[in-house]
């Protein structure tokens, strides 16, 4: 009997293999989607990270409003949107997003030169409702923004000429154009905005059991798939033909430092 007690003491209090870690994402293709094979870029990376260290991770798709309101869940996404409402034990950035400006080329007889906000004054700028952070400053610059509630609506307006430019997350914009206008997708020009880069992260709630140990496992798994090339394989599925934003890994490292707690 005494040997059994010693044996039980040798079993770690928490083992990665024993529990399923539940994370929540909202439907936002091509990053998170129930309808995409593998669940989208984010889901594929999270599962590969988990597999690398034998962690079982379940991604539940829930409405975003519920994700934000729930202050005890584990979230997947851009930490900046969640941190004001919820405290996390660990934030593990594992990918990045980049924004771009899109325009419809057939409406212009030359390529647009867009190097700063001054170049945008002559255009009607389409943005998703709620994404303008420095509205006051933009109004003072004399910029004219039009908001829409849905991404599809922005690109339909762009094609119809009701707005001139659209600000959108690069990969989302490309996906939206391919869905809405598959025949004319090459008529839409995109200009990436290198200073718009944001992280996509796994966020573990402050009260989640064994959050620190789980975070260490995720970080280990991420390092492993970057080292063995699996990470590159996945991101290149979504950014084929050398389209992966430059500085992807340097930015990822910077965000890992920023959220290293």
């Amino acid at each position, binding site marked *: 009997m005494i040997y059994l007690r010693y044996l039980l003491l040798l079993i770690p209090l928490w083992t990665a293999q024993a529990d399923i870690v539940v994370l929540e994402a909202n439907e936002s293709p091509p990053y998170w989607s129930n309808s995409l094979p593998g669940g989208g870029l984010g889901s594929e990376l999270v599962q590969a990270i988990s597999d690398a260290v034998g962690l079982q991770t379940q991604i539940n798709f829930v409405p*975003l409003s519920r994700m934000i309101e729930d202050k005890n869940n584990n979230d997947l996404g851009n930490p900046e949107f969640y941190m004001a409402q919820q405290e996390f034990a660990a934030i593990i950035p594992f990918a990045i997003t980049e924004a771009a400006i899109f325009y419809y080329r057939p409406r212009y007889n030359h390529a647009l030169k867009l190097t700063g906000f001054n170049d945008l004054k002559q255009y009607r700028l389409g943005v*998703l*409702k*709620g994404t303008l952070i420095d*509205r*006051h400053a933009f109004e003072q610059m004399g910029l004219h923004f039009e908001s829409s509630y849905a991404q599809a609506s922005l690109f339909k307006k762009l094609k119809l000429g009701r707005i001139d430019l659209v*600000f959108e997350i690069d990969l989302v914009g490309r996906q939206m154009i391919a869905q809405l206008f598959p025949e004319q997708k090459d008529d839409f020009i995109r200009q990436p905005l290198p200073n*718009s880069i944001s992280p996509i992260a796994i966020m573990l709630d402050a009260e989640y059991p064994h959050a620190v140990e789980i975070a260490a496992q995720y970080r280990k798994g991420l390092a492993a798939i970057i080292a063995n090339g699996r990470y590159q394989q996945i991101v290149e599925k979504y950014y084929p033909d050398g389209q992966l934003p430059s500085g992807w890994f340097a930015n990822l490292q910077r965000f890992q430092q920023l*959220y290293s707690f």
Partner: protein
Amino acid sequence: MNIKKALTRLTVMLLVMVIYPVTALATGPRIKQDLFTPNANSIYALDFPPFITTELNDGGMAVELVNTALQIEKISASINILPLPRMMKYYVLQEKALALIGNHLSFTADQQKELIFIPLLRLKEHYYVYQPKHPEGLPWQGDLKALAKLVYGANPEEDVAAYQQAGIQVETGNTLTLMEKLKAEKIDFMGNSELAVNWFLDRNFSTDKAKFSKLEPGAGEETIFIIFNKNHPQGEALAKQFKQGLDAIIANGQYKALLEKHFGGSEAVNRYSLPLQ
């Protein structure tokens, strides 16, 4: 349709109207002034509504004060609002950002030597309790020793030495978390500016609002600073220039006018804040 159904539908519609902008915000790019090129003069501000917040068009009172002083001195800088003090420290210590705006930011003695602190706003503070736990309030008359053995909710980098010396236990969290802990009766009291507490009471505790009680007398004051970084190539020069701008808006009445605009009149300014000079 009966009244109950109509009310339910109306509630759902109102909820959708409130929630939808948040939904949109979280799936789109964040469109900021430095989207094309990084501004060499980056300033990071610690989220502290209603004084520093992305939820207000002008960024809140402290951000508008800074922008006004910057404009008067024609200093080009971008202000980014962040949720955590440790993120602010990363930017100022690792990436040599120009400046930080915030309260309750603690630095080591060595770090302080590299920083220039300029006060922006002095706010009166009060302690708050949750009535169901403390129906009679607390024996607070200005001496912390009277609150020994109770649990105080502090901000993450708040100086809590006085509480510990008085035998008070300390738990940390951001303002919203502390208010939730107060309601869950995990802490006994917390301190903050009345306006900051009212901001969250209106948004997050509207049905329990009356159960949060403010204690008198006041709990002291907290200061929102702009903190310039001497390790930024222009940190010292721009700190000096900014101070001139701030002095100018105080002298020409713009500072007072901005406070009255945000607080809601001169009486409210006296109720919630203290003179800067």
